């Protein structure tokens, strides 16, 4: 894998029809660290992520941003993406779904197939290689999606509420697993769950207001994933919840 760069977003601007979502937004994602982005629904978190991933937008949206990487190379082909829904293709098996990127780029090989199997083993799906998505539970499907994302082996990872559709226990398990597997990647994680941000993040940013502004990042010192029984976690969760409630009121 290429070395993970830090990313600076400068003067991000997005207008949808006549509604200004954000303007002059600045954001710094430190290299090989996980940045968690929290904030009320509809504030523009996903739009910011899409802007970063350079995904196409409809004609009603105007957007711009200056994106600078610490190594000076463009972001293209250096990003992998994990969404809220697993986006598994129902006609492909788990293994084939994991290999989707390589199938799309016509880069499938014996080696990459072995790596895919290894990753599926790591996420606990050793018995489901040849199963189809409809035969799996929601948690297992998201595990396949995680394996697919990691197999891409990209230094930058964008995650948009990847665990929000899962039940609490599955979510906690997957957070732990993800944290161990995404070390050394520059990660932007959008979430609604303060506990998730506190367990997985190196820094937390809150997006609020209209047009939206970003808070100063609050840094978390020890290494993720943080233990659930950590009293620091609970204390921080209280503070973060207060901040989020405040952010919600400000954005109404």
């Amino acid at each position: 894998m290429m070395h993970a760069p830090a990313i600076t977003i400068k003067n991000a601007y997005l207008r949808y029809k006549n509604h200004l979502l954000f303007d002059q937004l600045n954001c710094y994602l430190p290299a090989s660290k996980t940045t968690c982005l929290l904030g009320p629904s509809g504030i523009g978190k996903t739009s910011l992520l899409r802007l970063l991933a350079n995904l196409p937008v409809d004609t009603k949206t105007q957007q711009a941003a200056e994106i600078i990487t610490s190594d000076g190379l463009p972001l293209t082909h250096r990003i992998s993406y994990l969404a809220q829904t697993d986006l598994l293709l129902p006609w492909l098996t788990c293994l084939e779904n994991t290999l989707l990127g390589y199938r799309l780029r016509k880069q499938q090989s014996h080696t990459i197939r072995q790596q895919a199997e290894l990753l599926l083993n790591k996420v606990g799906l050793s018995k489901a290689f040849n199963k189809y998505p409809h035969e799996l539970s929601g948690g297992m499907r998201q595990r396949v999606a995680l394996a697919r994302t990691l197999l891409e082996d990209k230094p930058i990872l964008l995650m948009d509420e990847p665990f929000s559709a899962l039940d609490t226990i599955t979510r906690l398990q997957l957070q732990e697993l993800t944290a161990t597997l995404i070390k050394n990647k520059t990660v932007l994680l959008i979430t609604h769950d303060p506990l998730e941000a506190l367990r997985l993040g190196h820094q937390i940013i809150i997006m609020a207001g209209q047009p939206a502004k970003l808070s100063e990042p609050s840094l978390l010192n020890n290494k993720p994933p943080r233990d659930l029984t950590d009293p620091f976690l609970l204390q921080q969760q209280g503070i973060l919840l207060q901040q989020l409630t405040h952010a919600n009121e400000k954005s109404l």
Partner: protein
Amino acid sequence: MIFLRGIIITLSFLLVWQLSVIIFQLPAYILPSPIQVFAALYTNVNLIAQESLSTILETLIGLFLGTLLGSSLALMMTFFRPLKSWLLPLLIVSQALPTFAIAPLLVIWFGYGIASKIVTIMLMLFFPVASAFFDGLRRTDSNWLDLANIMGASTWRTLWCIRIPAALPHFASGLRVATATAPIGAIIGEWVGASHGLGFLMLNANARMQIDLMFATLIVLVFLSLVLYFSIDKLLKYFIYWQKEN
């Protein structure tokens, strides 16, 4: 269970038919009894089988070519966006033309043989296939497209690996409609002008007041259409194994 129900429905239908012929004392040239019809089927089995062959051939070739034309049009409209605004009105006009009315013209253009029937079938069924498939291709989940985009897939690979498979269930419903229509197209073509086929046989039998033969041919036609429909349906279910069913 479905099989049993089919048999029960068929038997009760035949019973009602036979009883009404007996009760109302209908002459055979108005409504022959089922027994007479099956007798006609038995005595004319060679003739009907022979005439079936050309109808089957026309139906299969027409279905294949019509489906091919329909899906190519859908793919072209998906891929070359400007083409859609030019092509779509034309397609809709082609459906506004009553097939019955232009069938004689097709016979003049393509002759009494198999070609005019194939063209009639194609005209009737390319549209349901094209519109269903096009609809499916347009409705690809945009999140899948975003994923493919981030993964660095080319437009062609995205089409081949994601958009086409995702549109197959839509395509299948178009093809099912087409399969049900194809034999009708063949019969229309044969009615208008032919020297072979079940439609030709029915028209002849009708003209000679051989109503029992006409009914026998009709039964064979219904049977063939059902076999065709259920074979295609089975095939589609086999290939589109991921489609949910209640």
